[in-house]
Structure formats: C-alpha cells, structure tokens
C-alpha cells in the first residue's frame, strides 16, 4: 500500500468518526441532562427514532432541512414530556417507562411511516452537505477531519462545553444537578421538583431527538424500520462509561464512533471478515466496556428513584 493511500484512508476514517459521532453526541448530551436531573431514561432509542422519523416527514413534506431539524427537536421534546409525565408525575418505574416509550415509539412511527408511503414510491430527500470552514479546512489532516463537516457537527462539538457550562456554571445547572443528587433540598426550599424535572427531561430529550434527526438528515435520504438500530442504547452505555460527565461522555461516544468508522472502512478495503461481525463490534465493545467499569462514582445519588415527599 502506498504512503499516499494510507494517509487518505486514515483521514477518511477520522473524518467519518467525527461525522458518525455527531448524532451520538447530541443524544448523549441530552441524556446527560436528563439523567443528571435524576431520571434514568431508558427511552433514548425511542426518542432518537421519533426524532429521525419526524425529520424524515418534515424533510420530504416541506423540502426544508432546517424545518426538519426543528421537527426532530420538537418531537424529542414531546417524547421527553411523555417520559417526565410517567416518571416524575405518575412515578412509574423509570426503566419500565423507558421500555414502554421505546415500544410505543417503535409501533407508532412504523404505522405512520407505512401509511405515509402507502400506494406510492417512498419519497426521499437530499440531506446535509459538508460546509468547509475557510482557512481552517486547509490545515493538513486536521482540516479535512474537523473543519470540513456538516454544519450541525460543529454545533454538536460546541455543545459539549456549552452543556458543561450550563451544568456547572449556572444557577439552573446547580438546581438541575440537585434534582439528581438531593431533590428534597429543592423541595424544602419551596421549589417544585416535578416542574424542574419536566423542564430538564424535555430539554434533554429535545437534544436526543435532534441526534435522531441528524442521523436521518446527515446520513440517509429515507426512513426504514428500526432506523436507529440500537444507537440509543449505545448512548446509554456511553453515559455510564463517561461517568456522567460531559468530557467523559464525549470520549466514550467518540470511541464508539471510531469503531463504527473502522468497521465501514474495513469493508471498503475488503478485509476478509464477515460484515456482520464488523456491525456487531460496537455491541461487543459495550459489553466489554461495562464489564470493566464496575465501580463508577459519578452516578447521581438519586438517579432513577422517584421523588416522593414524606
């Protein structure tokens, strides 16, 4: 293999990693906000799926990709409202509520999708293209990897410090983290735990929905059954692996994205490995990762425990 070819492959793998990490990053940051507020939301998969479907509907119906982004965000927020209603208000077990949401979202999106395309060829759209940042994109290696990406990828990367700032440097973030660590402290101050959890879960799920929306608008031109293919669960694993911290979560999702990118490139290079094994890599890695992470200290103390006033 020539030197030039090797370099091109490496750049391609890294650039694809950054592209693939975008939806995971949006969704993981959203789930980070949700979980720091004490809600163990297992409905990430369903929320991403709904965001992706809403984006598909809006993109094919209106032809506007930015309206599609908005649709994904709103759909995510709506799913967040359902989760908050069930967990914070009705006090359904958090795991059960999330599983229920996934099953509900899977059934509903598939039904609407089938009725949407019934009796006609499936409508498609053309998704986001790369937006090269002037000057920066000319830097060798770094330029094509980091600065010649979809516009929303830049937003996702900037969202990491933004979420960190929100959580650790604002009053809102302090209250939000308090929801997960010690909701009683808020309650005795006369601040509503339920209202704050609703707001946090809707904000977080809006970002999770945006992740699903980007998966649609940045990678595909059409919706399919099980479109998100387990990425929502990868996000949940990334949160645990990232110890519920923005930077840790960024590292974890990047590792998953790198694996996926590597798998696609191995196929392109023509490695003699069954492609199913390559597709299975992120799931194998998740299990291996969780086996090694027995004791994590960053988990919010009251995560998944419904708050009830004594």
């Amino acid at each position: 293999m020539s030197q030039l070819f090797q370099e091109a492959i490496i750049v391609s793998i890294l650039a694809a990693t950054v592209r693939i990490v975008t939806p995971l990053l949006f969704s993981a940051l959203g789930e980070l906000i949700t979980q720091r507020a004490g809600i163990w939301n297992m409905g990430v998969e369903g929320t991403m799926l709904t965001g992706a479907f809403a984006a598909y509907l809006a993109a094919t119906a209106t032809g506007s990709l930015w309206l599609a982004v908005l649709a994904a965000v709103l759909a995510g927020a709506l799913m967040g409202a359902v989760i908050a209603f069930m967990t914070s208000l009705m006090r359904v077990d958090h795991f059960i509520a999330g599983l229920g949401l996934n099953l509900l979202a899977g059934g509903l999106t598939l039904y609407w999708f089938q009725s949407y395309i019934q009796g006609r060829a499936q409508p498609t759209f053309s998704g986001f293209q790369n937006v090269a940042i002037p000057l920066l994109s000319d830097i060798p290696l770094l330029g094509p990897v980091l600065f010649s990406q979809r516009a929303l990828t830049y937003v996702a990367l900037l969202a990491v410090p933004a979420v960190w700032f929100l959580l650790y440097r604002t009053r809102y973030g302090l209250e939000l983290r308090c929801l997960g660590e010690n909701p009683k402290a808020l309650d005795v101050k006369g601040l509503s735990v339920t209202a704050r959890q609703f707001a946090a879960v809707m904000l977080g799920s809006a970002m999770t929905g945006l992740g699903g929306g980007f998966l649609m608008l940045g990678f595909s031109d059409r919706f399919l059954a099980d479109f998100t293919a387990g990425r929502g669960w990868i996000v949940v694993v990334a949160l645990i692996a990232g110890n519920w911290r923005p930077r840790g979560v960024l590292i974890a999702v990047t590792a998953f994205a790198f694996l996926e990118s590597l798998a696609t490139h191995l196929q392109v290079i023509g490695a003699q490995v069954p492609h199913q094994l390559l597709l299975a890599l992120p799931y194998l890695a998740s299990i291996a990762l969780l086996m090694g992470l027995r004791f994590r200290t960053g988990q919010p103390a009251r995560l998944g425990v419904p708050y009830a006033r004594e």
Partner: protein
Amino acid sequence: MIRFEPRVESDALWTAASFAMAIAAGLAASAILLASTGADVLQVFSALLQGAVGSPKAVATTLVKATPIILTGLATVIAFRAQLWSIGQEGQVFAGAMGGYLGAQVLAGLPPLLFFPGVLAFGMAAGIALGWLAAVLKNRFGVNEIISTVMLNYLVVYLLSWLLQGGPWGESGGTISYHQSPMLPNEAFLPGMFGSSRLHAGVLLPFLAAAICALVMSRTPLGYEIRGLGYNPEALRHKGVNINRTVTIIMLASGALAALAGAIELFGVAHRLRADNLIGLGYAGIIVGMIGGLRPLGTVFAGLFFGGLASGAVYMRVLGDVPAALVPAMQGITLFFFLCAGVVARYRIVRVAVQ
C-alpha cells in the same frame, strides 16, 4: 386542589375499574390513530374482530399467533417479578429457533416422540445459554441487565444474519442469497390438530407453561424467592438466600421460555429458519407480560388478546389497506395506558382544601 395519596390496601373494584379505563382509553387512542391516517375506524375494528374470532380458522390463527407471545410474556413475568429487567427475550427467541434448527440436523431420523421434545430442548438450551451469559454479566461484573440483554440481542440477530447469509445455513439460489434456510423436511413439521395443518400441537405448550409458572410462583420456595427478590432483596439476603443463585435461575428459566417460543415458531409455523417470523416476538412478550399484570394467568389473557389482534390484522390486510404496523402500534398504545392505570390503581385521589 386534588392530591394523589398512596392506598394502604389495594381495592379490587378500583383496580378493575382503572384497568377497564385503560382498555377503553387504548381503544379510543387507537381509533384516533386510525382516523389520523384516514382509515374507516368502525370497518377496521369489525374486520379485526372478524379476523380474530369470526370463524374456526380465525380462532386457530389467533391461537397460533398467541403461542409465542404468551411464552415470551411468561419469560418476562418471571424476570420482572424479581425486578430483573431483562429484555433478552427478543434475542432468546432467535436463539431458540437457531438451536432448534441445529437440533433438527443432529436428531434427524428419530421417531417423532423423541424428535420433537429433542429439538425443542435444543432450542431451549440456546436460550438458557444466553440467559446464563446475562446472569454472569450481572452477578460477576455488575453489568445492568437491561443494557447487557439489549447488546446480546443485537449480537444474536447479527449471528443469525451471518448464518443465513455467508454462513453455513443459507439457502442459495444461483447467485442470490435469500436470507433464509432451506425448508425443513415434512416430518420435522409440528403435527396439526383437529384436521387443521395450521393449528399445530405447539399451541398447547404456552398453557402448560403458564400453569407450571403459576404453580412455581405461588407454591414453591423458588417462587417465594422470585417474589421476594422484587419486593425486598435485603430481607431475602438476611434470610440466607443466595441472591446470585436466584438471579441465575431466573435468567435461565426466562431464557428457556423465550427460546421455546422461537423453536415452536420454527417447527410449527415458518418451517425454515428466517428472521422475518421472529422479529418483535420478544418485545411483544414484554408488553403482554406487563399488561397481564406480571401474572401467568393475566399473561395468557393478554397474549390471547394480542394474538387475536395479530390474527385480525392478517384478515384486515386482505380486505383493506391499513398498514400491518397497526399491531405493534396498538400494542404500544395499550401498554402506555396500562402503565398509567397500574399507578392510578395504587393511589387514591383526595381533595385537599386550599388554605
């Protein structure tokens, strides 16, 4: 102002009323969903009913459709009652079909009385192996069982995909790969009953399994441990119960039940190994088990209800143009209202005077 107050004792009438409201709300929401896509709601509902119980053939289809989801529902009941949120049923169904298919090759030529129990045991063994993996991951490595079972589900699905496409079990016609195995020989079809080839003998097994589950849950030390694990694991530990052992037994039994569903689907319905028949049976079982109140008898009724829905949907598709995904959509909707009803049943609504 009104407030929710937990009930000290459950009130049977109030519980029944809240679940009746959940069914009504689920049907109403399904009607709205149908109307939202321009379908004739009354026509769809009457077609569903006709297709579920309207003729002997419809009833047979209902039973056949209910069989796997009652079994995966029972698998859910055992695990969830112990607050083990295993959702490995989906992958275990696949494993059961794969194990059964392997068994059919190993045991080919045996008389039916040995062959069928043998191949079903092969299938269940595969599900048990998966359940054991999840149990080890939880006990030894502290991996959350929801996440590990989801990951295992994807791994099993990819394994089947490889076996059928590129691997040793695929049926290849020239250059095309069909993503399915060749047909099983006729003698490997589960025998039919009442002169119907559709109504295979496997439909009896979920009822047997439900009876055994009910007995074990209510009348044995193991059942006590399962319920105790969900209710108060700390007290159970102080009694000297080995929690890890109980977790392992639950995961093995749950895996065996779900895998049995996959094996029956292979030998009774599909007669060849392919993913289409198996997708969603495990997830449907989670819904069925939860709507059945995590009780074996309730699960049988919920399974029959959704089996009828699935059978009705087959009939409905012949008539009109309502999408097949109506079934999972209605399942999800009904589950949602049942979860809410389960909470409502535990609380009293109290009026509080505002100062």
